[in-house]
């Protein structure tokens, strides 16, 4: 029997497919056509540049001259480069400190904002302002605030008789990295608060009723209901914080340029300097590739360890 023509290509997906049949070929064509716009964008802006960077990491190139094959030269340099190793360490420090600064705070705020009182919504709206600011703008604002002697914080310190506020926050070897962590947190905690707020709101109220009747105190309800129910929010937020911190660049570039000394010089900063200041694009590409691989590894590890990928459990038990 001949196949009746259909208007919708979708309909053919449900038909049993015969290998090599016209229907199958037509399906494939339809599928490819359907995803091609996304595929093209993904390819042009992600796959091609990534592959190009990986390729460049095996070459020497100063942009002006020709690209020269360098084999594993740049890679062996990376493995014995104390500067890169230090940058890697700073990068990990920044990621770890950012996680410590952002995730617990965002969780507490998110749970709080998820409450039903109206003033919380107003507060949350004000609180989200940092998300709307450009990174460059807020960096300059913070620079002014933190400027020793003349900055806003120093002024406040003088008027409130809290001298400890007047510090060379960004110029001190001991404080610069922590200061950067605080500024990044200021920028991103509101966003992560949103994640936790949504997560908390998705927890059915009856679970708390059940826990209350079961005899749980507020703290026990938090440990046994809220925290496990926020598991996927925690994974999502943590992944974004950690992977985001690995490639964090702009605030550092504007505020410290990696200094003082090399205390805030993260790998991304190193990569930028190597590429655009020293025009060693081959070696810069090694650093870029390392960053990319690290990001993928961290994300994959989080997803794997937490069972996020399979999403079993969840809230399906409720209904």
């Amino acid at each position, binding site marked *: 029997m001949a196949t009746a023509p259909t208007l919708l290509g979708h309909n053919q997906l449900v038909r049993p497919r015969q290998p090599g049949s016209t229907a199958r070929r037509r399906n494939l064509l339809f599928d490819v056509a359907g995803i091609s716009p996304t595929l093209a964008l993904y390819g042009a802006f992600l796959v091609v540049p990534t592959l190009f960077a990986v390729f460049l990491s095996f070459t020497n190139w100063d942009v002006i001259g020709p690209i020269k094959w360098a084999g594993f030269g740049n890679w062996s340099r990376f493995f014995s480069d104390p500067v890169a190793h230090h940058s890697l360490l700073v990068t990990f420090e920044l990621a770890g400190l950012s996680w410590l600064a952002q995730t617990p705070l965002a969780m507490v705020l998110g749970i709080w904002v998820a409450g039903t009182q109206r003033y919380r919504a107003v507060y949350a709206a004000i609180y989200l302002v940092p998300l709307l600011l450009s990174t460059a703008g807020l960096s300059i604002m913070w620079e002014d605030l933190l400027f020793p002697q003349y900055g806003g914080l120093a002024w406040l310190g003088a008027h409130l008789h809290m001298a400890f506020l007047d510090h060379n926050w960004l110029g001190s070897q001991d404080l610069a990295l922590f200061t950067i962590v605080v500024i990044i947190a200021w920028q991103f905690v509101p966003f992560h608060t949103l994640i936790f707020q949504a997560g908390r709101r998705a927890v*059915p109220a*009856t*679970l708390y*009723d*059940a*826990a*209350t*009747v*079961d*005899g*749980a*105190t507020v703290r*026990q309800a938090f440990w*046994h*209901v809220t925290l*496990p*129910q926020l*598991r996927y929010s925690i994974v999502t937020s943590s992944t974004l914080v950690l992977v985001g911190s690995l490639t964090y660049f702009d605030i550092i570039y504007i505020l410290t340029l990696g200094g003082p000394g090399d205390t805030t010089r993260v790998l991304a900063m190193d990569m930028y300097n190597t590429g655009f200041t020293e025009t060693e694009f081959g070696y810069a590409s090694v650093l870029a590739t390392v960053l990319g691989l690290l990001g993928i590894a961290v994300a994959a590890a989080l997803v794997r360890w937490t069972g996020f990928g399979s999403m*079993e*459990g*969840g*809230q*399906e*038990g*409720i*209904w």
Partner: protein
Amino acid sequence: MATITLEKVSKVYPNGLPAVTDLDLEVAEGELMVLVGPSGSGKTTALRMVAGLEDITSGTLRMGGQVVNDLPPKDRNVAMVFQSYALYPHMTVAENIGFALKLRKMPKDQIKAKVRDAAQMLGLTDYLNSKPAQLSGGQRQRVAMGRAIVREPSVFLMDEPLSNLDAKMRVQMRAEISRIQRRVGVATMYVTHDQTEAMTMGDRVAVLHMGRLQQCGTPQMLYERPDNIFVAAFIGSPAMNLYEAGISSDGEQVVIGSQSLALPRGLLESRPGLAAMKGRKVVVGIRPEHLSDAALAPSPGPGTTLYADVELIEALGHELEVHFLIDATRARSEEAAAAQETADLGGAPALTMAGAKSEGVARVSPRSQLKAGSRAAFVVDTEHLHFFDPDTGAAIWN
């Protein structure tokens, strides 16, 4: 083990909305008390107040004689089964059942033993390590029951525990819950909007409407002697036929539309209050089973027959449900309407046709030859008529 006593218990929400007003109720040890009513009747709020999940605005709540108004839920030793089961999704069945015991810091091996016993009783032994998401609706329901009984509570509360199950499972779990409740033997409050559940499960049934207790009694008592129009319309399926009517001035007949029925002596004696209604309007109630096909009756007495147009016949095998239109005005009290809405979910929508024809239902023998579209004569079992005051909605007895 404890009795539950509510004395003039009221709940007014912060926005001024009264949810429950002056509720008096006593649930004895081992008794299963069903709170039934349409949505918004305050039954769940009443239950939540007993659980301690909702503050009591005024009145006294006692458990085993002790006033517990201000006692936090964990000190009331109540167990509750929720409509949505509210199982902890991240815990296994065993962890769910044992959670309350774990919070009480009971030793692990004891918890294990208790959980095992409960699981055995509920047929959940093979699922102890499963997560709720992997269970069927009926199994989740059993886990919720297990979680409640494992604690050996002194009071058992259930909030529409069957409403998320399909019809077949509901009938099965209905029996199972009754069995478990009898076995556990504690005072139980069971909330439902389903009058069938209320009738089949309750030792006693409390009917609530608009936050007020309408009547409390055994299912049979509510069915046979409803205190008011609301209870009459709410209890029973198909629902009682309620029409506006009048008592003749000699007090010997009830006039329904253009027809009338003779009031038998027995009826007048058992309802002395009817004597005061001579020449006045009443609402008359006729249960569907008190109407039978006149063609099958040997010799209907005078003044026992009502005529109506058959609209639709539903054959149920053991009986026929005959939907008819009768020349009368359906009692249009707000309460009857609210009760109808919830009680008679399967029934046809109430239509008020031109010429004041009102619908009704009769349950007749399957031998009846009645056909849709034909004119039928129904013999009315007049001994079982119900009468209500149209102004107050109260049943007329004394």
